[in-house]
């Protein structure tokens, strides 16, 4: 483990923390970490408790499982229950509740629902079962959307006609803009998402400093990455700069992955609007198959109810996803809603803020409250 030590080195972390303390000044700083992977690292390593109190991290909408509205899960179940359909999904989506239960329950009722690791697995099932209609439940940001695009290109090239995609792919920039336009929240900057930026690059975030006057630092997933991201945001504020910077340059390039972007452009087009859990309808925030791929579009091939379902009253995933409340401030957190029996999406995925906090953060918080330790003076 030669290299891990570099990213977990307590001495290095102390140096960055010292820089952070010097940069904080008298102001309060509220930064949003956009990506669920960041949230996971922050809770897992207790980063909230080593940062000065004046630096507040709020969790953003970057967990693709968490932002799928209940109505889309019901649509998925409706397709899965049609005769002859073999419905395929990533494992993360199987326990996400809709208004009409989840996919696992649909499977128990007799629907042929299968979990796949990759859209290519779904395509192969279609080739192996020519008498069945294989539908792939596509979810995810630009991190997974290119995989769906390449799979569709292969389906077309191979002439596989009993395969279709129920696309719920979403894009990362519109929700950031929606959050910036939201009156609920005052943010001072963003820790930009890591993996999704390997595809989209850093350029799409330029509107954040240019139009909203907030800095963005694309950040990696190690504890030291997060601390450096915070340090870079603070340095920009202190120096009166406001720009997009790249802490994660060992993976993320400014131009992203042009090959992946080209595949997206070839297969998908933007939907006029798409509903996000907690954020409501956001214009041009999701991807549907374009007309060249109509023959592979499950929304055109099957009867999809498209009914909007309100979240359960008790569930506050929306406020959690916007960073308005912390997971533990939700009324059902850890009582009615747990990873075993999730009410809301944020408790389902391991990248969801509530599940991450339930699994790790709670311990850190209880420990630090009970012993009065953790936060340096």
């Amino acid at each position, binding site marked *: 483990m030669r290299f891990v030590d570099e990213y977990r080195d307590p001495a290095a972390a102390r140096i960055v923390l010292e820089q952070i303390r010097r940069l904080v000044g008298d102001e309060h700083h509220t930064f949003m970490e956009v990506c669920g*992977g960041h949230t996971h690292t922050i809770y897992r390593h207790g980063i909230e408790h080593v940062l000065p109190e004046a630096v507040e991290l709020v969790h953003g909408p970057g967990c693709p499982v968490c932002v799928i509205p209940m109505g889309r899960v019901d649509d998925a179940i409706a397709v899965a229950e049609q005769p002859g359909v073999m419905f395929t999904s990533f494992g993360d989506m199987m326990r996400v509740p809709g208004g009409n239960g989840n996919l696992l329950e649909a499977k128990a009722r007799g629907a042929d629902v299968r979990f796949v690791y990759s859209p290519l697995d779904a395509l*192969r099932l279609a080739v192996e079962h020519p008498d069945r209609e294989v539908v792939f439940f596509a979810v995810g940001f630009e991190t997974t959307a290119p*995989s769906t695009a390449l799979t569709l290109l292969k389906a077309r090239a191979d002439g596989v006609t009993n395969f279709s995609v129920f696309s719920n792919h979403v894009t990362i920039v519109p929700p950031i803009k929606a959050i910036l336009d939201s009156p609920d929240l005052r943010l001072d900057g963003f820790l930009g998402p890591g993996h999704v930026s390997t595809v989209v690059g850093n350029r799409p975030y330029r509107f954040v400093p240019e139009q909203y006057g907030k800095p963005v630092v694309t950040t990696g997933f190690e504890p030291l990455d997060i601390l450096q991201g915070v340090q870079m945001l603070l340095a920009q504020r202190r120096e009166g700069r406001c720009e997009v910077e790249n802490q994660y340059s060992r993976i993320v390039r400014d131009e992203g992955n042009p090959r992946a972007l080209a595949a997206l452009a070839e297969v998908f087009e933007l939907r006029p609007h798409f509903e996000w859990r907690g954020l409501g309808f956001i214009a041009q925030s999701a991807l549907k198959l374009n007309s060249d791929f109509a023959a592979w579009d499950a929304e055109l091939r099957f009867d999809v109810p498209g009914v909007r379902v309100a979240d359960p009253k008790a569930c506050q995933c929306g406020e959690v996803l916007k960073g308005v409340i912390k997971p533990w401030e939700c009324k059902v957190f850890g009582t009615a809603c747990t990873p075993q029996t999730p009410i809301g999406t944020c408790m389902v995925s391991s990248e969801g803020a509530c599940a991450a906090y339930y699994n790790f953060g709670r311990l850190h918080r209880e420990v630090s409250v009970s012993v009065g330790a953790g936060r340096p003076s």
Partner: protein
Amino acid sequence: MCLGIPGQLAELVPGTEGQLAVVDVAGVRRRVNIGLLEDEVLEVGDWVLIHVGFAMSKIDEAEAEVALASLHLLGQAYDEEVEALRASALGEEAAS
């Protein structure tokens, strides 16, 4: 699904026009699609980050080790993802 898993390139699969490679992931060899890295120079021994069966980025050995260490910390979620990758159908048939 969001987890990127590092794998080390063991061989390029001939006859797939550079679309498929055999990658060593956590001690198990799997085929993955490398079509999104067509602009990169990929050689046996290189490391890539794999999302849902597709290599999304070329990474260096240091990053691969760090990413693996982080993934191990995830415990069950990581085990499930690797198990899913192993059970995945990206085998011989997918190459044709």
